Each structure stands twice: as structure tokens, then as C-alpha cells.
């Protein structure tokens, strides 16, 4: 019984801390559904269109259809921000169906604008993150396989060389990397992100893969060798099929890192054509001209920017949790 009571106490503390942790994100999601004039009126509150949806349904159910009325804001053709004050627009009585579709449209309007502006950044980020994650898996698993399963002259020294690159902090190489990729003529391209991401990301990945590959049973490799399989055939037919889990972890470690990276894309891809999600968010916040200048757009953009990792998180919770802890040691 005592155990139960202390549990309730712990739950209360944990829920408080959790609430404080998630509070800013709750406001972000909430404000992504609220128009500029609503946010101007009060920064925190229930989205008007959501409350209207409930109110109008209530009026409909209780037989008061004449109370369904809305301020229909005139749409500007040039797609610029509203200049009409909400109070100056008269209330119009409309049918239930019309009101509902109007409110729904108002509710997700911020997301429509945000997606219009944000789509190229999302596509760029997906291209860069996915291809560098798979590049890392390919390159580092082959190297880790060689280090884990073979002894050859210099294997210790070569592995030490790889590990010693962990000692170089990104702050040292940030500026010279820029100078170097400029010399190579890679500035403003996908390659300027993908190649350095693979080069840097493979180190921790080799480390993770090597530990896993060393644990694979030797008998499998032996029988494959008896069948005449070469090094690469052994890697492809034995290692790869058995390493799906650890590969998922490595993919997640890398996607997390590259999706979040801000400074390198900012420096290496000054042309907005190749902007990724993080730099895109920054530019958007700088210009304030996001979408229709509607305040909800920026908040909707935060939500959209988080969706891919949310999907990954829900779809692969276990490797995700392993991946984030493994990724912590990358620094």
C-alpha cells in the first residue's frame, strides 16, 4: 500500500516536469492553428476556428441554425497579409455546411502556407539526410567488417587513425572546410552536405558496427568460404542480412545529426535553393514574410519540420532510443 502512495507522488512530480518540458511545444502546436489577429489579441488561447467548429455543431444539434454566423475575411488576390481589421468585417449568417468548411479551412490555413514555403527545404533535407545516412551505412559497414573479421598488416594502426579523427572538434574545421569546399567548387550543391556528413558520420558508425560484427558467429563465415565466397560476398550475404537492427540504429544516429545540423548548411549553401530545414526555418524567421505573413505559418513550419523525426520515432522507437544514446558520444 505504501508503495502505491509513493508511486502517485512520483507520478505527480514526473508529470509536472514533463508538462514544463513539453509546454513550449504545446503552445507551438496550438498557435499553428491560430490566425494573426487571434495571436495579436492574446498569445495563448484556444484556436477560434476550432472553438467555432464545436459551437456551430452545438447550434446545429440544438436547432439554432440562425446563430451560425462568421466574419468572412476578404481574401487578397496577391497572397499578401490581411490589411482589413477583423472588427470592421460584418458578421454574415451562413449555412452549417458552409460554416464548417470555412472553419476547417481557417484551421489548417497556416499549414497550407507553411508547406508552400517549406516544401523545397523539406525535400532538400530529406535528400541530404537519407542519402548521407545510407552512405554512412554502406561505407562504414564495409570498413567495420574488414576491421572486425580480418587481421592484416597495419589493421591496428589504421583503426587507430580512424578513431583519432574523433578528436578533431567541428569548431576547428568549420571555417577551413568552407575554404576547402570552395576550392573544390562544391559550394551550393547537395554534395557539399552529403560527402562531409558521410566522412564525419562514419567514424562512430564504424565503432558501432565493429563491435556488432565481432560478435557474429565464425561458423557462418567459414561455411561461406568453403563455398568459395570472397570477402565482399561474405559481407553481402552474411553480414548485411544479420545487421538490420544495428544498421537501423546507425541510420537514426545520422539522420538525427544531419537533420539538426545548422551551421554547416548555413555556411556551405548560402544559396537558398539548397537550404535544408534548419537553415530554412532560420531564413523564415528572419524575413517574417512567411507564406501570407500570417503568424500561424511560422508555428506550422516548426510542426512540419518535426514531423519526419516524429514518424521515425514512432515507427522505430527501440532503435531510436538506442540511436540517440549512441549518438551522444559522437561529440
Amino acid at each position: 500500500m505504501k508503495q502505491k502512495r509513493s508511486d502517485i507522488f512520483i507520478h505527480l512530480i514526473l508529470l509536472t516536469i514533463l508538462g514544463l518540458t513539453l509546454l513550449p511545444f504545446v503552445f507551438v502546436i496550438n498557435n499553428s492553428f491560430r490566425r494573426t489577429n487571434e495571436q495579436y489579441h492574446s498569445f495563448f488561447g484556444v484556436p477560434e476556428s476550432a472553438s467555432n467548429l464545436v459551437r456551430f455543431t452545438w447550434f446545429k444539434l440544438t436547432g439554432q441554425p440562425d446563430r451560425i454566423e462568421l466574419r468572412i475575411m476578404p481574401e487578397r488576390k496577391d497572397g499578401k497579409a490581411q490589411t482589413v481589421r477583423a472588427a470592421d468585417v460584418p458578421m454574415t449568417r451562413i449555412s452549417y455546411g458552409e460554416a464548417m468548411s470555412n472553419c476547417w479551412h481557417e484551421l489548417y490555413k497556416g499549414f497550407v502556407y507553411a508547406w508552400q514555403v517549406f516544401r523545397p527545404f523539406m525535400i532538400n533535407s530529406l535528400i541530404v539526410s537519407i542519402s548521407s545516412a545510407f552512405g554512412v551505412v554502406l561505407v562504414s559497414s564495409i570498413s567495420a567488417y574488414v576491421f572486425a573479421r580480418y587481421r592484416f598488416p597495419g589493421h591496428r594502426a589504421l583503426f587507430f587513425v580512424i578513431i583519432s579523427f574523433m578528436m578533431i572538434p567541428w569548431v576547428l574545421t568549420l571555417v577551413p572546410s568552407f575554404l576547402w569546399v570552395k576550392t573544390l567548387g562544391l559550394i551550393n550543391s547537395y554534395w557539399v552536405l552529403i560527402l562531409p556528413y558521410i566522412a564525419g558520420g562514419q567514424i562512430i558508425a564504424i565503432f558501432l558496427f565493429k563491435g556488432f560484427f565481432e560478435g557474429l558467429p565464425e561458423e557462418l563465415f567459414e561455411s561461406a568460404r568453403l563455398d568459395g565466397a570472397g570477402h565482399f560476398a561474405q559481407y553481402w550475404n552474411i553480414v548485411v542480412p544479420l545487421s538490420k537492427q544495428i544498421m537501423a540504429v546507425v541510420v537514426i544516429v545520422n539522420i538525427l545529426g544531419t537533420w539538426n545540423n545548422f551551421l554547416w548548411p548555413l555556411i556551405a549553401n548560402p544559396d537558398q535553393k539548397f537550404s535544408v530545414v534548419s537553415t530554412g526555418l532560420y531564413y523564415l524567421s528572419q524575413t517574417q514574410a512567411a507564406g501570407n505573413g500570417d503568424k500561424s505559418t511560422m508555428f506550422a513550419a516548426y510542426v512540419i519540420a518535426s514531423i519526419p523525426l516524429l514518424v521515425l520515432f514512432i515507427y522505430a522507437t527501440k532503435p531510436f532510443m538506442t540511436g540517440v544514446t549512441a549518438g551522444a558520444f559522437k561529440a
Partner: protein
Amino acid sequence: MTESSTPLSDTTDATGPGGPVLAYTTLRETARSRSLIDHIAASASLYAMLIPTFLLLALFCLVPFVIAIWRSFQEYEVGGTAKFVGLANYREYLFHDYTFLQSFGNMIFLTLFAVICVMIVPLIVAKLIFSLTSERASYIYRILFLIPIIVPNVAIFLIWRGVIYGDDGLLNLVSRALHLPLPAHGWFSTPSTVLWAIAFIGFPFAGGINILIYYAGLTSIPDSVHEAAELDGAIGLRKFFTIDVPMVMSQIKLLVMLTIIGGVQAFEGVYILTGGGPGFRSLVPGLWMYDNAFKFQRMGYACAIGVILFLLILALTIFNMRYFRSAEQLQGQTR
């Protein structure tokens, strides 16, 4: 096949079942009889498989590293000519740069603040989660506390700027409602509040992976230790400080080390939020490096600042070398 390569089990036919260690020693004996060059030639395909890794490392890790050192001794502008100036860049930054003391002070303040936070809050939360009787509830909490990690860092900074510190943000709302003697707005533009405002981003500092790392440490404490402690009458807070804290010391050290290394380098948040202002009140060395490179075009000087930060991190890392070994053990545990 076995002639052209040296797989681990090369010797298993001859010596019966042999582990990798045995295989390795016998292999060295055979290697002695063969010449080294033959051996290397026989392993050619293995070296070939390592080419992509080393090519990428050389191109995008080694070359920038060499450039960093080399350029730090030069006065260099992109497109301009480079002039060798010896240690002048270093001397200028360490002794004549008017931002040096301020920015290092800011960096130390922000890093120390982050270190204190990472030592306390996630550990307490992890301990609370660990003490829950329901396995299911503890798993759900661990997942929920991980949610902030899916939001991009840039978004976190911008969200805090708008939602918490904004003119209509939560902080001003609360301070107005309670008539607190806090600055009504402009948390980032007031010199006395800017550093605290930046430091408090992420409050209550519980979200993210730190809880998972501490939790892994707590689960690895053997039950017998808990039982012995309880027999000795150690319960509650006393048990926490005498048993739990010492047992997760390697995790604490690791996270402190990672936080320090991260703190020395961090300037993304300051760049996005204040640009180092007002004045140089929130400037950090990393941002000054960025400014010198991309605002003032002083690439050599920027490289010198980078090298100084690198040497600082290197010194800290060597000092704590053994904590990195605990990182490997940790990875095994969390899996």
C-alpha cells in the same frame, strides 16, 4: 582462397577450434615466415575495401584540419593573397582582442550552467522513473521525455525566443500578471538578462537523452547492492547519495565531459538569438570565429581562434581520457 587472405579462422583447420586470439598468434608466426610485402599484397582486396573510408576521411577531415593549422599562421582573405605572419594571429587573439575576456567569460558561464543542470535534473528524473513500480509506466515516461529531441535545434531556439521570451511570451505574461519586478520585455536586448535568458533555454533541462543515459546507469546497479544498503538502513535521500550517485558516477562524468566539449564549441544558439549582442554581452569565442571568417573576411584569424578552441578541447579530453572508455561500456548497456 585462404592463400589470398587472412581471415580469422585461417588456422582453425590446422589447429582445431581456435578463437580469434589463438588464430591471431598463429597467424603472426606464419607472417614471420612470409615476407611482409607478400602479406600486404595478399590483403590487397581488404585494403581496397577500406579505400572509401580513408578517401572520405582524408578529403573532408584531414585536409580541413591541415588547412586550419596552416591558415592560422597567415593573414588570409578569400580571393586575396595569403601572407605568412607567424604567431601574430594567436598573439592578437590572446592578448589584444577586446572580446577575448568577455567571450570566454560568457562561454564559461554558459558551460558551467549547462554542466550543473545536466548533473542534477536528468539524474533526479531518471531516479524517479526508475523507482516506479510499473515497468510499463517507466517505459512510457522514458519515451515521453525523449519527445523534444524530434524538434530541430534551430526550432527550439526560435520557439523559446517567441513563445517564452517574446513580447507577448509566457515569461512577460506571467511577470505582468504577478507584477514581478522583471524587465517587461526584451530579455535578449537587456545586457543584464541576456546570458541568463540564453542559459535557461530548455528549462527544466529534463528532455532528451540524458535521462536515458542515467537510467541505463541506474539499471546496471546490482540488486544485491540495493538490498545491502537497505539492510544497513540506507533509505530515501541517504540511499540516493550513498548508493545511486556513486554508482552512476561514470555516467555523470561522461555527460559533464560531453557538456563541456559541447559548451566550448557552441555558438549556434547565440548566433540565432542575439548575434552576440547587445554589444558583446552574449558573444562566445565560436561566434567570434564565425564573425571573423564570414563578416570580416579574416580567415587566418578565424582559423587561429579555431585552433585555440581545439587545443582547449584537446587538453580537456586528454585530461579525461578514461571517461571515453566508459562511453563504450555505456553503449553496450543502453542497447
